[in-house]
C-alpha cells in the first residue's frame, strides 16, 4: 500500500511517500502501526484531530476500512484558495 504525507506531516516524518506492508483493517489501525514504528511517526500522529486522510484520493475518515485501497494520504487541514 502506498502511503503519502503532505505539508508538516511530510516534514516531520521526513519523506513524501513510502510503500507500507500492512494488514491494518482501518486507517486508525494503520496509524497505530506507524506510530509504533518510529518516534518521528509518533510525533507526526500525536494529535490525529489535526490530521486528515484521503483513500485513493477521496477524503475519508479514520474509521474507514482499508480493504482494496491502494493509496492512503495523510495531511493537515487544507488551506487552499
Amino acid at each position, binding site marked *: 500500500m502506498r502511503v503519502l504525507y503532505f505539508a508538516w506531516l511530510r516534514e516531520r516524518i521526513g519523506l513524501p511517500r513510502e510503500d507500507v506492508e500492512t494488514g491494518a483493517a482501518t486507517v486508525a489501525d494503520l496509524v497505530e502501526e506507524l506510530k509504533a514504528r518510529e518516534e518521528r511517526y509518533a510525533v507526526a500522529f500525536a494529535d490525529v484531530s489535526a490530521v486528515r486522510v484521503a483513500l485513493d484520493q477521496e477524503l475519508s475518515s479514520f474509521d474507514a476500512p482499508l480493504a482494496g485501497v491502494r493509496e492512503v494520504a495523510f495531511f493537515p487541514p487544507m*488551506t*487552499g484558495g
Partner: protein
Amino acid sequence: MIRVQQGTFDPGAELNAFSAAQEGAGAVVSFSGVVRDVAGGLEAMEIEHYPGMTEAALEEFRAEAVRRWSLSGALVIHRHGRLAPGEVIMMVCTAAPHRADAFAAAEFLMDYLKSRAPFWKKEVTAEGAAWVAAKDEDEDALSRW
C-alpha cells in the same frame, strides 16, 4: 474548466476569455486571490498540493456548482509552487443569466477551495517558514451550502 498549474496567469485575460465563451450570461463574477504580505515581510508563499487529487477535487466542486445553480459556465485556476507577495494565487469565474446565481456559485467554489481542495500554504519570512493554519471560520463557511 479547471486548471492546476505552477506558472502564473493573467486574471484580466482569463476573465475576458471566460466571458467571451459564455452564451446568454448577463452576469459574470470573478474572484482572484493574491499573495498578501505579512507583518515583518513575506519572502515567499509556498503552496504544496496533491497531484491527481487536486484536479479531481476542483472538477468535483465545479460540477457541483453547475448542478446547484443555473450557470452558463464556471472556471477554476489554482497555482502551486513558490509565489512572491503580490502574485496571483488562484481565480474563480462564474457566469449565469442572473447575478444571484453567479455570486452564490463563486462563493461556494471559494469556500470549497479554501477547506476541501488539497493545497497547503507555507509562509516564508526572514524568521523562518511556517505552515498556514486552517481557520475555523473557513470550515464553518461550508455549513451554509
